[in-house]
């Protein structure tokens, strides 16, 4: 089994709602056995080692937005534009991902308030085809930025992606300039654009909108980078440094402003918005 499917399997078991109180899991950080219900009640952070587990869009919205937010519709895009199939048809992969997820693609936006500060919050969900950026993610990003401009508020994006969606070929690569057009428009409107990097954020997502925030926040321990570790390993043929491409490493190398524990994330965002937003609070 590849590391990716290992990760996917562990996620799908964690992402289940209404988990029975008796279900156990092994913390990927410290190998401690934890009750899944305790883990989830603790924002999917290990109480023992503070390992930050991956959480989906719905959990993020609930964590960061005040109650009463609105989930924005995911824009429609051409499906399977290259008529792509590898070992499976891309349309079948999409169908399977949709069956397992509450939202139709990997990036979903919601409009609401963060401790009363108006904001559009976009969340990328790693469980949806590894969070990968295809046309739907690009279109959702543009849509989120446009909504923020229309509402004269900040756009906050929570990233999680293995990179571009290869099944869309070059069209996925084109989402890099496309999303960058959107960040430029936010900047031209003088609106804050804040990036929260979560585990993992790599490839073309990192090399576009995920690195262009006015403020860059990372969750503890998150893997963040351009190239995959295996690719780098194959290139240099030596051991990678300790903590390489982790949030703390990026902080030490000047690539993010701060590493923020999940329990402090909402408060941190609210504070930043208080400083950066133009209009008084909603």
């Amino acid at each position, binding site marked *: 089994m*590849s590391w990716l499917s290992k990760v996917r399997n562990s996620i799908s078991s964690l992402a289940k709602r209404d988990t029975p109180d008796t279900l156990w899991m092994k913390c990927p950080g410290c190998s401690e056995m934890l009750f899944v219900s305790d883990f989830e009640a603790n924002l999917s952070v290990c109480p023992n080692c503070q390992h930050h587990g991956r959480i989906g869009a719905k959990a993020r919205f609930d964590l960061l937005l005040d109650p009463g937010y609105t989930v924005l519709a995911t824009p*429609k*895009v*051409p499906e399977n*534009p*290259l008529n*792509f*199939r*590898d*070992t499976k048809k891309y349309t079948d992969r999409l169908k399977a991902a949709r069956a397992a997820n509450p939202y139709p693609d990997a990036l979903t936006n919601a409009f609401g308030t963060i401790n009363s500060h108006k904001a559009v919050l976009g969340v990328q969900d790693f469980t949806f085809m590894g969070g990968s950026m295809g*046309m739907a993610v690009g*279109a959702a990003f*543009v849509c989120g930025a446009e909504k923020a401009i229309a509402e004269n508020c900040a756009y906050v994006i929570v990233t999680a992606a293995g990179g*571009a969606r*290869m*099944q*869309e*070929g*070059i*069209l*996925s*690569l*084109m989402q*890099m*300039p*496309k999303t*960058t*057009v959107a*960040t*430029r*428009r936010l900047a031209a409107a003088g609106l804050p654009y804040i990036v929260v990097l979560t585990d993992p954020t790599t*490839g*073309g997502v*990192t*090399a*576009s*909108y*995920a*690195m*262009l925030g006015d403020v860059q926040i990372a969750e503890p321990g998150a893997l*963040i*980078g*351009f*190239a*995959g570790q295996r*690719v*780098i390993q194959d*290139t*240099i043929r030596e051991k*990678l*440094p300790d903590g*390489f*491409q982790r949030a703390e490493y990026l902080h030490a*190398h*000047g*690539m993010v402003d701060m590493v923020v524990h999940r329990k402090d994330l909402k408060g941190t965002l609210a504070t930043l918005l208080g400083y950066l937003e133009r209009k008084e609070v909603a």
Partner: protein
Amino acid sequence: MISFLDFEKPIAELESRIAELRTTADGSDLDIGGEIGRLEKKSAQMLAATYAKLTPWQKTQVARHPQRPHLVDYIRLAFTDFVPLAGDRTFGEDAAIIGGLAMLDGRKVMVIGHEKGHDTPSRIKHNFGSAKPEGYRKAIRLMGMASKFGLPVVSLVDTAGAFPGVEAEERGQAEAIARSTEACLALGVPMVAVIVGEGGSGGAIAIAAANTVLMLEHAVYSVISPEGASSILWRTADKAADAATAMKVTAQDLLGLKVIDAIVPEPSGGAHRDPAATARTLAEAVARELDALSGCSPSELVRQREERFLAIGSL
């Protein structure tokens, strides 16, 4: 001496027959000129026929051909009066991306592109065309300078991808690429990009978010190498040819998807068989596109570029 690719084997055999006959003819008074002429004609026909229907994987090999003209060749053959400009003013000079001032048939331009190198020492010097953050930050600096002085930007793309290494990550490879793409989009001057060899992923788009994107006839442009896609999606190393086809990496495919605006034809048998002719065609095509953009105001240029990338793949 042209080195032949695997699929050119019949042509290579014919060419070596012709060479043999020539040697024979030189040392004797046999009249085999007619036979040589006939074989040469046949070889030229075979070459044209082969190159007219290259598969995506064959095109990938042509795009990576060791003798394919690179940036330094185009600077020599398509531009004049080149003044190289080095360094990102922050960390260092990255020879995987070369840039500078140049004349293109009477037009002052800023030329920027990847350089892969043509032999072992130069390949090492240019890091095989795989740039590090300082390469992209130099590109950003030169684009800013071009904007300031009203010089159109011409970028020539030829990279397997940005360098995947520890020091590149340490110095913010992702941020450098993102900012370089942003710098293209912000330019108040015309920008024409040409994919001349391999357009490899983020390392390519970083200098290709242009008003007009051209592609040489046998160049390839993709989000990941066919080998990479094979190993990730098919979980085997030997599906690269299938991956190249499935990902639609050729100029002909990408024109249909409106990712590129026009195809620049190559000489029969590919750019490496006649770099000078390729450079001439390329210079004419770029000049034509620059002229078409020359009447636009800075804000119109920015707008056109933004709309171009927003529109790709929309319903």
